[in-house]
């Protein structure tokens, strides 16, 4: 590694702009206006953003936690949650892989993650981390050439305030729901993306290469704006499981596809699901939504295997005529995991089209629910939706539920809904085993076959990883 790279890497910390005259790095648990002022000041935010946060907080105070989802969990005690922790420095992390949880390492091994990436994921303070920083730097300069802005949202607040101010909360209003309001009040950091008019983003944007990734924390906020006739593909997450001490995660993602733009947003979510007895694990309460203007397209693809409790409905508001919304989802639950996930397709414009392909897999004692809304507004002449919702059960102690909501106020709209529930049968397993495959390999093969329609929507290398991830996540589900 050259001295240049090291210098760049070091200087970047300062470039991020964490300049503040507040000495203390931590605040006591609990939430009040003072905490929000502290967070905002800590980030050196402009006055308008502080006001924006406070307004969200005041709204949140009047709301209560939603209880309609098909999940059960002990209530989160927000008085115990710490709403700000400073970015951790490398010295706080483990010094080497020897200090990292062996279970976690075993999983990395199974997923075939190279050693230096294992160290990075586990937060080990090593030089290897600098490699990824230099890769990221190369990426950044290439993006800058195309005029693409890809940076932490905390940075965009300063460097592109007009864009942030115009679009933040424009898709998911501050008072949209309990967790979105909470996120709006206390969001930590996240990605900001802007693709200029007519630009096709020269590469897949991945959170993996985002600088300042460390400690974006539990209240992540992402805003992606694709200007007219632009294209972008964004990858969120990582197949490798990331440890996180924060139990509650409440992220908000907003997508804006202006006329003729296309946004493809792919997620692989593998937060810690808790142990085999159902202890621990992340609560993932996410609000993801996109607005599609005329002739634009928003496509959500998600592979959800982690978290103890998932509550997530990536949605599309098809506002412009001829706009297209897509949702491709694989949600796998094992052991005691619970997932209530699906999408909303709100058809406002004429000739809007949406496709929903949802594959739910339940194993162990888990519960997996699909919840989807298709709404055809009175003005959505000629709108169409196709929904296919398949559930696969492994074993006889798990559950699958489907809650489709269809509201059509336009007689010319066409809505198709297909749903199936099937089981990995003993006969299928027997056939595979008689051909020499062990039971776990057989199950993962059957499950991968079941998910094929969704996997083909993922970027190539992601699809391969996703298949492997399902295999690892299903371990112990048979026999």
């Amino acid at each position, binding site marked *: 590694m050259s001295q240049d790279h090291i210098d760049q890497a070091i200087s970047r910390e300062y470039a991020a702009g964490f300049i503040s005259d507040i000495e203390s790095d931590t605040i006591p648990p609990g939430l009040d206006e003072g905490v929000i002022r502290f967070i905002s000041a800590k980030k050196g935010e402009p006055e308008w953003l502080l006001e924006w946060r406070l307004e969200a907080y005041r709204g949140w105070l009047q709301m209560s936690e939603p209880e309609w989802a098909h999940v059960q969990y002990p209530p989160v005690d927000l008085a115990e949650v710490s709403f700000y922790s400073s970015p951790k420095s490398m010295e706080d992390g483990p010094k080497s892989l020897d200090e990292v949880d062996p279970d976690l390492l075993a999983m990395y091994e199974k997923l075939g993650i190279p050693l230096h990436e294992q160290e990075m994921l586990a937060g080990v303070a090593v030089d290897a981390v600098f490699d990824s920083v230099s890769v990221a730097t190369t990426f950044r300069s290439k993006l800058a050439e195309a005029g693409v802005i890809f940076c932490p949202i905390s940075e965009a607040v300063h460097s592109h305030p007009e864009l942030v101010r115009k679009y933040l909360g424009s898709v998911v209003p501050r008072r949209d729901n309990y967790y979105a309001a909470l996120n709006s009040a206390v969001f930590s950091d996240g990605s900001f993306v802007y693709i200029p008019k007519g630009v096709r983003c020269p590469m897949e944007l991945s959170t993996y290469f985002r600088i300042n990734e460390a400690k974006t924390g539990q209240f992540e906020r992402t805003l992606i704006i694709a200007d007219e006739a632009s294209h972008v593909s964004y990858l969120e997450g990582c197949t490798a499981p990331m440890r996180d001490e924060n139990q509650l995660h409440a992220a908000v993602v907003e997508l804006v596809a202006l006329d003729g733009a296309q946004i493809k947003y792919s997620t692989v979510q593998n937060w810690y699901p808790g142990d085999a007895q159902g202890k621990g694990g992340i609560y993932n309460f996410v609000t993801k939504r996109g607005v599609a203007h005329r002739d634009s397209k928003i496509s959500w693809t998600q592979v959800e295997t982690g978290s103890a409790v998932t509550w997530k409905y990536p949605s599309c508001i098809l506002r412009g005529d001829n706009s297209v919304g897509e949702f491709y989802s694989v949600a796998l639950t094992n052991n005691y995991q619970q997932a209530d996930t699906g999408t909303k397709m709100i058809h406002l414009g004429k000739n809007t089209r949406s496709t929903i392909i949802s594959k739910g897999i339940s194993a162990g004692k888990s519960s997996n629910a699909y919840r989807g809304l298709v709404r055809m507004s009175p003005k959505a002449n000629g709108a169409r939706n196709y929904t296919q919702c398949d559930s696969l059960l492994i074993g006889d102690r798990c559950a699958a539920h489907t809650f489709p909501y269809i509201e059509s106020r336009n007689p010319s709209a066409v809505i198709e809904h297909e749903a199936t529930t099937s089981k990995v049968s003993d006969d*299928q397993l027997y*056939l*595979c*085993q*008689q051909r020499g*495959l062990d039971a776990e*390999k057989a199950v993962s093969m*059957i499950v991968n076959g079941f998910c094929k329609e969704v996997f083909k929507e993922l970027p190539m290398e992601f699809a391969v990883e996703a298949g492997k991830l399902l295999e690892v996540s299903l371990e112990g589900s048979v026999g």
Partner: protein
Amino acid sequence: MLTIENLHASVDGTDILKGLNLSVKPGEVHAIMGPNGSGKSTLGHVLAGRPGYTVTAGSATFLGQNLLELDTEQRARLGLFLAFQYPVEIPGVSNMEFLKAAVDAQREQRGEKPIDAVTFMKTARENCKAVDLDPAFLKRGVNEGFSGGEKKRNELLQMMMLQPRLGILDETDSGLDIDALQVVARGVNAMRSPDRAFVMVTHYQRLLDFIEPDFVHVLAGGRIVRSGDKSLALELEARGYAWLEEEVA
């Protein structure tokens, strides 16, 4: 190759096999015939290690190993193949992917590297041709939407890919028209070799016109009650099973 002594087995608490003896040597083809409910299919599943089939007494040795101690997949990897009477569908898993995984599982057992894609595809296409299946079937889900005859030919395709030491055909002839039957017979005959054996479970003498057995056994009441050469099959065709059952009783 396969030695079965005094085998007793039950399914869901019902005794089906009641003291079965059978010895199969390399290169031999054995036909097992018998009336409905005599335990013919059970024998195949017990040897293959189907869950729920419990051996209550007796022994079975395959290639010098105690077969009954091995897991289902271990038996398969040793070279025991069962062609199913009712092959199940596995939607979304392509035939190609399935076959390759099966071939590689056997190779792994022998300490070999996974088969390279080119060799695999070449062999798979040739075998498709041999069993008169369009190679397009390789890309379809395992048995997904296949007709009865196509499923049976797909079983044969799997057997040709895996080249087992012992092939057990469980009523592979049932539901086949005469052309398909000849295709299956041709495939099996081509695989006959001095170090491979076949056990064919069948209801009808018809199959034996095309695949000539060295031995014919009659299974009744969970035991082999009569063994002979292929003339026994002809006698059964003429007289039915009732006289044998009476004789045994």
